[in-house]
């Protein structure tokens, strides 16, 4: 048995980028948010892929989003769903709608994890949180 001092803390899940999402993850590493828009129907979408989920067009392109958005919904996690989150509860999970019109799953940080302190519809700005040398997560804090 190894002692407590030498046991590494369990890691939260680390994303494995796919070829279609490499540029998204490279962007976050530089504190930039790159999402996709369809040239066929003009609509933006998340998550990145080469087929437009609105019209099935293959003509899609990357564009840089501002990062400004509003909280579409949130929840406050009290029971960790994975050992990596054991020392992080309570934490706030959320879906944020960016002003460009796409919704992203995320966390709200820099707030008390209390329902009275977090409002759906309130404005948020991005926080780029380094997870590993190659992966940076997109989180948000109150604007």
């Amino acid at each position, binding site marked *: 048995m190894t002692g407590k001092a030498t046991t590494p803390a369990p890691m*939260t*899940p*680390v*994303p*494995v*980028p*796919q070829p279609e*999402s490499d540029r998204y993850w490279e962007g976050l590493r530089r504190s930039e948010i790159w999402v996709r828009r369809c040239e066929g129907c003009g609509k933006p979408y998340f*998550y990145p892929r080469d087929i437009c989920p609105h019209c099935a067009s293959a003509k899609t392109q990357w564009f840089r989003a501002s990062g400004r958005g509003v909280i*579409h*919904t*949130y*929840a*406050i*996690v*009290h*029971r*960790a*769903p*994975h050992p990596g*989150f054991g020392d*992080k509860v*309570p*934490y706030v*999970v*959320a*879906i944020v709608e960016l002003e460009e019109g796409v*919704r*992203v*799953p*995320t*966390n709200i940080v820099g707030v008390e994890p209390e*329902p009275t302190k977090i409002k*759906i*519809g309130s404005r948020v700005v991005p926080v780029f949180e380094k*997870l590993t040398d190659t*992966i940076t*997560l997109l*989180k948000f804090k109150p604007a």
Partner: protein
Amino acid sequence: MPVESSLARISGKASIVGVAESDEIGKVPNKSPLQHHAEAARNALEDAGLKLSDVDGFLTAGYNGYDVAEYLGIQPRYTDSTSVGGSSFVIHLAHALAAINAGYCEVALITHGQAGRSDRARPGPNPGLPAAQYESPHGIMGPPITYALACNRYLHQYGEDRTRQAMAEIAVSTRKWANLNPKAYMQAEKMTFDDYHDSRWIAWPFHLLDCCLVTDAGAAIVVTSASRARDTKKNPIRILGVGEGHDHSMISQMPDLTSAFGRNTGPQAMKMAGVGHGDFDLTMIYDSFTYTVLVTLENLGFCKPGEAADFVAGQRTAPGGNFPLNTSGGGLSYTHPGMYGIFLIVEAVRQLRNECGDRQVADCRLALVHGTGGSLSSTGTTVLGRA
């Protein structure tokens, strides 16, 4: 419309003739998930008065069909492993109805088995799925969290206090049904409104008592043609209407967090059966969470969006109320091994056969069964009726 008229042609043209759980359900540490499949299969066939060798169609979820069929020792000529979460087994009823009427098989066996509490093997999420890239790293993992995200949007749109009271109504009324079911995990445990409001937070807005149980259990269903059903042991229960589908996988991709696919599958199943909302003697709705029931009642059209709180007020869904709902005690208080949908069917069939003892709904002739899977992702609706 052509699709609907061809569906109407097979309405009632297959029947459920056997239903059962595995030998023991609840906390069963000494049995594997596959053993639950096998016990339930044997029990359901016994219930039908049929043998494993009569089975020529096999349907399951959570496994590839051949994994379970090999364990059982059967070689089906029709196979369907449609696996879209807890609604899968309700969807299997639709597929069995279609397969039997197309001549693919005559006796279809649907099995389920999971050891949600006790399983020694705990597979993680597939790292190649978008959810593993975009949701899991943020700790958005598992139904309590994904459904909590949907629920909070509903609270925002329709009011927190009245919805909270409605969630408590469902928790308490469902427990009262469980108190009447000898097979219910919570049969001996009473629940008050205070118990509900005092229970700890799992993922706000969900208390512990908003969340379904985690149990070990299996169940199985036998479906056969209307003609062959005449020779089985018990009253056949006809499959009158069906609907299935999904509109997203990840919760963050759900087009409208307060509207699941039951908005389509409910009306389709009712239209195929030629029945309306007021015709049901029993309603079985997948209660992964108290909130799931509220939003489903609205999606199915029992009430308008935002009105479920009024619909379920005053313990209307409890024993003695005029809208009997989840009379087994549901996923909240009877059993919930992971993919609970098959247990909705088991209870509906038992009610329609008048086998439910203390919790029997008087003169139960028509039942609506509605399963939800994934993160409110998939739904299956079926209308079942006594012949």
